């Protein structure tokens, strides 16, 4: 199971049990949705604050450093790279240029200066007006950094727009991936599905098979490692045959991978059938009745506090975090 263990995202941490683990899965789901929605149409400071609050939450929750170093490390690296790349990329903004010189400047040329002295003086005065550098009205600068030669780059320009886009992309990626990862890290898969089962309860009135949907989701969460294991076994089986891919050519390589994909599908269907047999032997009732009870879904005081914090959070998002 090397492939699965090497995946840094989405794995459940069963020990130590932190206070984040103890919060009701439904409350955590509401908070996850909040973290996914709150960055939309918000200003850069709010987005940075959201990403920062996730890091702070991880530290305050007491999640061991070895766990979040692995999860957060590569994500921070990716986001930093995205930030740098987007900052120095052209901002692609179509600026409508408005000259800060008087409109007559375009008409002045040395050829026009052949008239009498009075006209010459007037023209000289106008030329002086046009050539003098106008002082900026405010300290606003659209271009924040501009160097013609910067290390290996022919020119490095950072504008307000590119910086804004860089912050948007990097913080959005971090918030979306890390909030989901933190949720999966502190919530057992069947807790998630039990929480969903409870939240989807009203759908039962419309004869929607909620338990069946939830059971299917739970089984698929168990099935993911098995799929990865099958993929890994097939990849290993191909590797051990020492195939010379260069000699094989594109067409025959594609044929080989098609055979492998066929085998993978066959193995997965066989596994699914064997699991179905095992379920029968283990006392499976029927898809819409088999509700596995394992977690008690009860809102305690800590859950109400977590829900209560949502009110000031959304007020802050509305009044402080909105776009300028």
């Amino acid at each position, binding site marked *: *199971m090397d492939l*699965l*263990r090497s995946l840094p995202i989405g*794995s*459940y941490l*069963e*020990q130590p*049990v932190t206070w984040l683990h103890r919060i009701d899965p439904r409350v955590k789901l509401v908070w996850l949705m909040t973290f996914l929605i709150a960055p939309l149409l918000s200003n850069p400071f709010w987005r940075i604050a959201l990403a920062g609050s996730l890091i702070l939450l991880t530290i305050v929750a007491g999640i061991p450093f070895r766990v979040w170093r692995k999860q957060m490390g590569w994500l921070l690296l990716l986001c930093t790279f995205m930030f740098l790349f987007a900052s120095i990329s052209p901002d692609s903004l179509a600026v409508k240029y408005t000259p800060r010189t008087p409109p007559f400047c375009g008409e002045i040329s040395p050829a026009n200066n052949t008239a009498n002295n009075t006209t010459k003086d007037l023209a000289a005065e106008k030329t002086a007006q046009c050539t003098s550098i106008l002082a900026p009205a405010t300290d606003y600068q659209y271009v924040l950094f501009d160097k013609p030669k910067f290390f290996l780059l022919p020119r490095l320009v950072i504008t307000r727009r590119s910086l804004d886009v860089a912050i948007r992309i990097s913080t959005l990626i971090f918030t979306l991936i890390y909030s989901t990862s933190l949720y999966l890290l502190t919530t*057992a*898969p*069947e807790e998630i599905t039990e929480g969903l089962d409870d939240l989807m309860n009203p759908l039962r009135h419309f004869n929607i098979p909620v338990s069946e949907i939830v059971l299917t989701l*739970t*089984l698929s*969460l*168990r099935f993911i*490692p*098995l799929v990865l*294991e099958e993929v890994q076994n097939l990849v290993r089986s191909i590797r051990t045959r020492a195939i010379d891919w260069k000699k094989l050519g594109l067409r025959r390589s594609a044929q080989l991978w098609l055979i492998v994909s066929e085998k993978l599908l066959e193995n997965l269907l066989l*596994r699914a059938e*064997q*699991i179905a*047999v*095992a*379920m*029968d*032997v*283990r*006392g*499976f*009732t029927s898809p819409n*009745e*088999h*509700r*596995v*009870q*394992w977690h*008690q879904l009860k809102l305690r005081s800590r859950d109400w506090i977590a829900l209560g914090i949502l009110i000031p959070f959304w007020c802050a998002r509305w009044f402080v975090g909105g776009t300028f």
Partner: protein
Amino acid sequence: MSHSINIGLKPDKTPVIRVNDVGFSWSSEAIVLDGCSLEVPQGEFWMLLGNNGSGKSTLLRLLAGLLVPDRGSIVMPYKTGFVFQNPDRQLVMPTVGADIAFGLVSEHLSLVQVKERVRSALDAVNLLDLERRPIHALSGGQKQRIAIAGAIARNCEVIMFDEPTALLDPDSQLELVAQVKNLVKNSNLTALWVTHRLEELDYCDGAFLLEGGKVVAKGDPQSLKQRLLATEK
């Protein structure tokens, strides 16, 4: 059972598994079991040996009710658990505790009762500290013990094992078989264990040898082991 050899057979206790003259075939040419008969006494640990294709796994599937015999009868009045060769094909929930609780749904227990049953089953297989662990993070031996705990939690009186040590290393293999022996000894369990590893015979109370779809020898495991080793030489 007139056609089978009894080797140092102990006095029979009440049988909890009774197979009488069972026949099964996949087609008219592929006859798997032909007049197979055996009895497993209550509270004992018996093994079923045989070469590949001798019908061991088919017999176990017949006992579990997954297949129906063509003829003969199978009497098993007690609740039965089943442990498959590959536990990855048996464990269906994402974490240990929830997987054991999977088999308890039909009993309509309260959450407190479910938790009690799960913990007591995990305690029986010495894995109480793994209650919250994801299944994919367990070793092969631990997965097999979780599968056994699933049967114990359901209060199964009989557990059948279909080559549960086939995918384990030698140390884990002997550790598992020793643990099952202790379980049978300490509780009123009956176990029927399919294997083709002779060293596992040291741990059981009795054994059957299956050949050509019928039991050809049964009784004391050590005598059977000696006989099989002599045949191999």
